[in-house]
């Protein structure tokens, strides 16, 4: 099995910490990720609203490139961004399900000298870590376990919806299991897959921030020391708007919002700079760690 | 079939398909498709038998020889036969029949065996439509194009149903 890494735009920008921590932990787990050469934007959800087929074609190009690199080998395209993960999966499924979409994209790809046979397996790092690397390997690698750090595991939407491929749609557990394996203590809360507002925070701010507020408040109510995320947009929304949320709703919601991979990395003893933890606005209080 | 015998398929080609359905499951399912008003391709002609075990491979050969372009067989799901195991007998004969057809130069896709339970009206619809589509792709069955035997004689073109190759009659 070949593992190719599809960073997506955010991991090269606002969520550098996600990329840094993902690459570092995979390195440490001896499964180094190779970045897909020449990748382009996945097509992202915002674009779907304007021109769905073009969005899917953008995604399909990445799939075709991955297939090309892998040759005949089975290949996993690891996409840490929930949005990329969904759009890449959706492109794959829509091409199969809707003949007219598939036809247009296949034709256009041929024009552009591309070919896609449908052999790429789009994967999220949560999936790869639990199912391929395994919890035992994680436990072994955790040289500095997190000692009961209380974490609100937040999966967001698009990693389990609409396609629940590797985890339960209503009660996902992979992040819980990973963090438990390295000594953290997931808090019991019901909002692990409730929407953070996505791009609404930037477009219809009031609506978007309300959703973030609900999540942050509940995480605090449940006694979490930190929120762990697996999606750049979720992390950005939950972390960067905390100030505005506080003034809009008159309620302090300061809580560190990390990537799950940063917490795993920390437990593996990787230093904070390498994990991008220094890039957080609200520092992860290590008192509990 | 070799290229030289394949003729262009006429646009308005309406495949002629004979369907042998067992009384208990598939014929009933076919009735259910009717009561449920599931429309499907009008190309099949259903002949009712009590059990798929009654389907003599010679019936299939006769149907093809008399002008059918395809034959569909339908019985109860394995384990559900009204007579315990007639459907298994049918399956065994069907496998042999397919080999025989291939030897005669007839595409094996022209015959199809399906298990359809009494409640599966929708499967009658689906299978019939698929079968018609399949036969449309294959085109009309042109038996005169059957290649000659290795010894130079024409393949036996049975004159009477009863005289068709007895190797069809295996249990």
């Amino acid at each position, binding site marked *: 099995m070949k593992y190719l890494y599809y960073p997506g735009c955010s991991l090269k920008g*606002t969520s550098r910490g996600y990329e840094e921590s993902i690459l570092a932990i995979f390195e440490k787990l001896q499964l180094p990720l190779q970045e897909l050469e020449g990748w382009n934007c996945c097509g992202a959800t915002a674009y779907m609203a304007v021109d769905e087929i073009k969005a899917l074609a953008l995604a399909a190009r990445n799939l075709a490139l991955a297939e090309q690199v892998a040759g005949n080998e089975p290949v996993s395209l690891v996409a840490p961004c929930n949005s990329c993960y969904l759009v890449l999966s959706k492109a794959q499924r829509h091409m199969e399900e809707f003949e007219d979409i598939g036809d247009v994209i296949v034709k256009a790809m041929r024009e552009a000298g591309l070919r896609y046979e449908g052999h790429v397996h789009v994967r999220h790092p949560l999936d790869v870590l639990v199912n391929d690397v395994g919890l035992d390997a994680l436990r072994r690698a955790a040289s500095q376990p997190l000692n009961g750090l209380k974490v609100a595991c937040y999966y967001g939407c698009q990693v389990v919806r609409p396609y629940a491929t590797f985890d339960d749609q209503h009660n996902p557990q992979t992040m819980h299991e990973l963090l438990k394996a390295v000594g953290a203590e997931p808090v019991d809360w019901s909002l692990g897959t409730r929407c953070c507002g996505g791009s609404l925070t930037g477009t219809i701010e009031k609506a978007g921030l309300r959703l973030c507020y609900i999540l942050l408040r509940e995480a605090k109510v449940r006694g979490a020391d930190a929120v762990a995320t697996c999606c750049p947009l979720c992390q950005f929304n939950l972390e960067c708007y905390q100030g505005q949320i506080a003034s809009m709703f008159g309620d302090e919601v300061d809580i560190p919002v990390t990537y799950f991979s940063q917490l795993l990395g920390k437990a593996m003893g990787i230093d904070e700079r390498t994990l991008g933890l220094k890039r957080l606005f609200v520092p992860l209080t290590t008192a509990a760690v | 079939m070799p290229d030289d015998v394949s003729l262009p398929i006429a646009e308005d080609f309406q495949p002629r398909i004979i369907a042998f359905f067992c009384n208990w499951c598939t014929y009933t399912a076919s009735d259910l498709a009717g009561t449920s008003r599931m429309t499907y391709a009008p190309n099949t002609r259903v002949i009712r038998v009590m059990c798929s075990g009654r389907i003599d491979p010679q019936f299939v050969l006769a149907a093809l020889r008399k002008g059918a372009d395809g034959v569909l067989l339908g019985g109860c799901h394995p384990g559900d036969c009204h007579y315990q195991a007639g459907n298994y007998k049918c399956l065994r004969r069907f496998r042999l029949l397919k080999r025989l057809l291939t030897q005669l130069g007839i595409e094996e896709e022209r015959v199809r065996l399906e298990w359809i339970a009494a409640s599966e009206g929708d499967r009658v619809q689906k299978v019939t439509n698929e079968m018609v589509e399949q036969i449309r792709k294959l085109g009309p069955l042109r038996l005169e194009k059957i290649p000659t035997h290795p010894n130079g004689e024409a393949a036996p073109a049975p004159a009477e149903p009863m005289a068709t190759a007895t190797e069809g009659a295996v249990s």
Partner: protein
Amino acid sequence: MSELKIVRRIKYQQELDLSFGKDVAATPGGEDLYKCIQCGTCSSTCPVSVYMDQTPRRIIAMTRAGFKDDVLASNTIWLCSSCYACTVECPKSLRITDIMYALKQKAIAEKVYPRNLPIPVLAKEFFSAVMKTGRSNEGRIVARVWLKTNPLKILSHAGLGLKLLRRGRMSIKTERMTGGHDQMRRLLDAVETARAAQPTR
């Protein structure tokens, strides 16, 4: 005390677009539109329905009935954050998120979206960025969107931008594709041609 106002609420059949539902049902994911039983699961599972002028359930009903103008003028379709909660919870398996996408596309195509709404602008900015660099740069795009729709916002968010810059989470330098840029553009152009050649879409 407020003034009593009256508005005509009745709908005459001629004000409706009776083919609207069929159009939407013909888009990918719209196929089960007519199977809706109006149970409202979508509306109650929707985290943003708090602000919607029409609940998602009503959007479905109105779409089927041909209330095209009302549907496209509704804020609902723009509030949809594509979280897919309605899609997975729908007991009749309607792909409501996809239907919302279809409605957004129709609103943009007919240019009936609210003027102050940045989403269509965002989408356009996004597209031009991708065409130029093959990548999107959220900070830059958002800044440009605000510039076009609500310039005051840039000022209020300047602090955030600076914080991001300081932590290396936003760069002045543009991220670009490491190759294949021409190929990507060729692909997008070819989509236009292939689509034009298709009879139905």
